[in-house]
């Protein structure tokens, strides 16, 4: 199980490195991040896995897509313009994501309680929250400062000249 996931992660990352088109690379990168989330799930960390999917595969990758749309990346973008998402563009990421899906479904079909079986004890959101807002409260505050600084910085940098 673990080896399949890590194989998917490594293959997807390799493909992300070798794709010429930025959007293709991004699709494979998303698959790589999803497979890392599955690894987290197998390690008994469902909360971190959920955060990984939401923040990484969701928010950050959407940011990348937006920037790529604005940049309109040169000849790659032009040559991809004619054929808008042909089948072979998404068939690779789709297959790799399907492997991950099967891996998630098989334990359920076998009647065991998800991937967190054996001696792996799952750490749920409650424990993480108790830890986060207990001993790590200062870290949460600092993360808030960091995100605020990131927000202000991104706004300042992304602003139009002279606006």
């Amino acid at each position, binding site marked *: 199980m*673990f*080896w399949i996931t*890590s194989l998917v*992660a*490594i293959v997807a*990352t*390799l493909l*992300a*490195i070798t794709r010429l088109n*930025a959007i293709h*690379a*991004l699709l494979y*990168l998303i698959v*790589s*991040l999803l497979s*890392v989330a599955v*690894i*987290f799930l*197998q*390690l*008994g*960390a469902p*909360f*971190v896995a959920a*955060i*990984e999917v939401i*923040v*990484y595969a969701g*928010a*950050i990758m959407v*940011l*990348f897509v*937006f*920037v*790529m749309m*604005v*940049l309109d*990346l040169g000849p790659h973008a032009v040559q991809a313009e004619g054929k808008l998402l042909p089948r072979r563009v998404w068939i690779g990421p789709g297959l790799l994501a399907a492997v991950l899906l099967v891996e998630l479904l098989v334990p359920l079909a076998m009647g065991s309680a998800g991937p967190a079986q054996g001696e*792996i004890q799952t*750490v749920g959101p409650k*424990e*993480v929250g108790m*830890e*986060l807002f207990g001993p*790590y409260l200062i*870290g949460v505050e600092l*993360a808030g400062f*960091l*995100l605020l*600084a*990131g*927000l202000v*910085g*991104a*706004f300042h*940098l*992304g602003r139009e*000249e002279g606006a």
Partner: protein
Amino acid sequence: MELGAYLAVSAVLFVLGMAMAAARRSLIYVLMGLELILNAANINLVAFARFKPEIGLDGQIGAIFVIILAAAEAAIGLAIVLNVYSRFGTIRPDDIDELRQ
């Protein structure tokens, strides 16, 4: 599955991220490589939290903070990329190696 296996996968992903940041000729790919590197570090943190009981939850908390950091870094980095593009008309690092014009 043993700790070493997870560390091995994490190391492979880390190296691939470094290769991506170093080999591709566009700032976008450099940022993607950075995300991969942070991600590989996350696997390490969660794996240690799982296999070393004395660490406990700290590894997962660390992973969450790394994800927060990655989000902030991506926002700032992409804003800088947009700024560079509007100023120089390119995002190839080779073309923008002068500090001033």
